[in-house]
């Protein structure tokens, strides 16, 4: 009971501080009183952080007097999954969301404390206070995490089985939330710039900085999510165009468009209204995504929580877009520039092409996600929009983006000289062609792979060429380390990551080989070029689960696919795949069935298979590991951009 009130009082304090911050910022705007944002933001952060600590404490001590703990924790839940259990359902997720938002709000206030009375900063923090107040009020009302549980619970229910099977539950959701919540900052600055009409100063660059931070977290979060489902779900895939996956992808697409087009604004002063629209759209899509995840309107494999928050979220979405659109309509003309893109094949022209692809793809994904609802509303029949629809667009869009990445980084601004451009891409073009011919001679005849590899090598060449130029310039200055902080370094490292990711995706999906093999103990066989051996059974038990493992050798290495039975739920079991991964290929092995007259808890018995034999599902996917390595590069590049130096001719008045 104490915890209930400790938690609630913390939430109320945070709520009060956020509302106080709103009032203080409005006063500062109207009367010019000194800003008190620092005080209010820190008090709000302290409140929400205390609430979070109370919740963590309740989980770690298995305090079932909180209903949320009783539903998502059990006495036998290990410490790690007790800690992560806090965000395994709706109320705790919003608590984590508010904590990240409170931290970001304080970070913004502290970073601009010397300009705390600048109207742009006042407006931006005001907007962030409003967003923070919205989520805190949601917790004070409809999604209260601190509901008392009167029943005497002995053991608790434990988290959803899928949420206590992998350490990534500690990393993937917080990163994803950091990405989602992080887009509040560029949105706040967009509103601030629209309200004050000041888009010509350093604020767009500051805005980009925060966007890249959120974008990096979201990118790594998405890749880790794919990695998680790849390891856990047992079908060897990493992306399923599930509505919740789409919800994370939508703001990522518009943010990627924004990160590119704002560069044109810095260098040429163009696209101001467009960039502000993208910042608003990105934030609005995070709210819409949260609606898709939490409303229960769309069905998905991520149905860990559905709630009554739908109407609240969709109203907030509409208000957000409405506010942005109204401000743009009111202020838009004053922000426009008289000049435009002079040549479609100049650098800025190619940025336009990039934006068309990203935004177009976002629209296609949004349509595909909402379409089942529209169709049902009109025809009364339920349909699902599956991978073929999305893949039909994702393939060409990906190819086009690789082509842009191969050319855009080396094309000059404003004007176009065919000779200059050709001289810059000549070497990489020949290398790409040579690589493609070698692959062709080596027996690769799948044309999407050939095209993708050709363009990927060219894109890597363009990025490498830029990086070499940066290093040479740094060496001439006698300060080689400054290359890390050069304006183009971070972006080109991310490009290299995207190239690796693209190659991983294209090659692994084009050359996947799936098969089932039946092996007796001590037998081995060759599948998809891999020697697979079966060495017998092993039983492993702990407080959380019981596993029947198979000792399987791939080449000389041993992996252990298993069937796992979790404690605390009915006797149903899940398959736990095992993966032997190296830089050339992944071998993904699942325990599919056992032979007759065998008894292994949870395992399927297959007739026609001898006793003591097992049926293994073996999937061989070449170059899959590069997908995760590409993700690492993207994260590293995003981190680099935090220390980025400004371009010499970037605007600054």
């Amino acid at each position, binding site marked *: 009971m104490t915890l209930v009130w400790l938690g609630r009082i913390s939430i109320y304090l945070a709520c009060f501080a956020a509302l106080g911050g709103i009032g203080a910022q409005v006063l500062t705007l109207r009367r010019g009183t000194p800003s008190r944002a620092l005080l209010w933001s820190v008090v709000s952060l302290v409140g929400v952080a205390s609430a979070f600590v109370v919740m963590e404490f309740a989980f770690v001590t298995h305090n079932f007097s909180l209903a949320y703990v009783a*539903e998502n924790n059990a006495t036998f839940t290990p410490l790690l999954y007790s800690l992560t259990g806090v965000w395994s359902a709706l109320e705790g997720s919003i608590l984590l969301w508010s904590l990240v938002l409170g931290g970001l709000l304080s970070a913004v206030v502290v970073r601009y404390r010397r300009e705390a009375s600048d109207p742009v900063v006042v407006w931006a923090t005001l907007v962030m206070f409003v967003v923070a107040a919205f989520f805190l009020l949601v917790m004070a009302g409809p999604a209260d995490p601190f509901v008392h549980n009167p029943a005497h619970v002995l053991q608790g229910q434990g988290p959803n089985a899928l949420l206590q099977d992998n350490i990534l539950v500690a990393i993937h959701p917080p990163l994803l939330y950091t990405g989602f919540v992080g887009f509040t900052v560029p949105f706040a600055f967009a509103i601030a710039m629209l309200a004050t009409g000041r888009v010509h100063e350093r604020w767009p660059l500051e805005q980009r900085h925060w966007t890249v931070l959120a974008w990096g977290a979201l990118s790594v979060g998405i890749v880790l999510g794919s990695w998680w489902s790849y390891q856990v779900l047992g079908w060897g895939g990493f992306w399923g165009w599930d509505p919740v996956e789409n919800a994370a992808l939508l703001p990522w697409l518009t943010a990627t468009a924004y990160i590119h087009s704002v560069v044109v604004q810095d260098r040429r002063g163009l696209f101001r209204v467009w960039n502000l629209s993208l910042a608003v759209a990105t934030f609005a899509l995070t709210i819409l995504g949260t609606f898709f995840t939490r409303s*229960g309107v769309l069905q998905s494999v991520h149905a860990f929580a559905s709630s009554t928050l739908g109407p609240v979220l969709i109203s907030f979405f509409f208000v957000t877009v409405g506010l942005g659109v109204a401000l743009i309509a009111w202020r838009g003309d004053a922000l426009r520039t008289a000049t435009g893109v002079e040549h479609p094949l100049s650098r800025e022209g190619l940025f336009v092409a990039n934006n068309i692809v990203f935004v177009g793809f976002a629209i296609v994904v949004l349509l595909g996600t909402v379409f089942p609802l529209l169709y049902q509303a009109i025809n009364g029949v*339920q349909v699902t929009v599956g991978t073929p629809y999305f893949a039909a667009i994702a393939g060409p869009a990906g190819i086009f983006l690789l082509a842009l990445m191969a050319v855009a980084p080396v094309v000059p601004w404003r004007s176009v000289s065919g000779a200059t451009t050709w001289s810059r891409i000549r070497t990489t073009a020949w290398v790409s062609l040579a690589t493609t011919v070698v692959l062709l001679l080596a027996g690769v005849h799948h044309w999407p792979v050939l095209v993708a590899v050709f363009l990927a090598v060219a894109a890597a060449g363009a990025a490498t060429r830029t990086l070499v130029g940066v290093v040479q310039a740094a060496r001439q200055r006698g300060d080689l380390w400054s290359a890390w902080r050069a304006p183009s370094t971070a972006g080109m490292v991310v490009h290299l990551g995207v190239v690796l990711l693209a190659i991983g995706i294209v090659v692994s999906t084009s050359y996947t080989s799936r098969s089932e093999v039946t092996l007796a103990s001590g037998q081995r066989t060759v599948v998809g070029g891999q020697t697979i051996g079966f060495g017998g059974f092993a039983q492993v038990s702990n407080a959380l689960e019981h596993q029947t493992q198979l000792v399987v050798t791939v080449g000389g290495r041993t992996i252990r696919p298993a069937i796992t039975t979790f404690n605390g739920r009915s006797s149903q079991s899940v398959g736990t795949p095992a993966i032997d991964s190296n830089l050339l290929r992944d071998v993904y092995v699942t325990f599919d069935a056992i032979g007759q007259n065998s008894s292994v808890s949870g395992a399927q018995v297959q007739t026609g298979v001898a006793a003591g034999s097992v049926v293994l599902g073996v999937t061989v996917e070449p170059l899959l590991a590069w997908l995760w390595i590409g993700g690492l590069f993207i994260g590293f590049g995003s981190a680099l951009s935090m220390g980025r130096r400004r371009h010499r001719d970037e605007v600054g008045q």
Partner: protein
Amino acid sequence: MKRSIALGALATLLVVGALSWFLLTRQPISASSVQSPLLGKVAPAVSGAELGGGTFSLAAHRGDVVVVNFWSSWCEPCKQEAPNLSTFAWQQRAHKVFVIGVVFNDTVASAETFARYYGSLYPSVIDAQGAIAFHYGVTSPPTTFVINAKGIVAATLVGPTTVAQLTQVVNRVAQ
């Protein structure tokens, strides 16, 4: 120039407004409750081997509210409702409510893959000859029967069901 921004803003607002209104008025997807001839009758037997080993018998669950869900791995709406059934089974497992799947018109291998893909948290009986489905009059999956503690069929739901709907029906039946 001036008009294009205002018009663009208006158009955006209209589209987003329509989308918001549309989403606001959506109900969480759920099945329709139908008057089947089995309502109020003693539930036909459900027994046999489970996917992944073990056996099940409905008779052994007298005293529990049992949710019997007929499904097949090739059925698209079944894919939609599978996570809901898992969530529901998970939520209710301490409340004398039992969820059992009956998989019919299917191969064991693909049913097994389906259950693994969706991380099913409830067992399923293999209705190899379609006999259970025949006695329940089920022709197309998904169809769900809710059987009360006395073994009487209390509700029939045709189409993919949801956690909210199942919770509502089960609460009504339990009273």
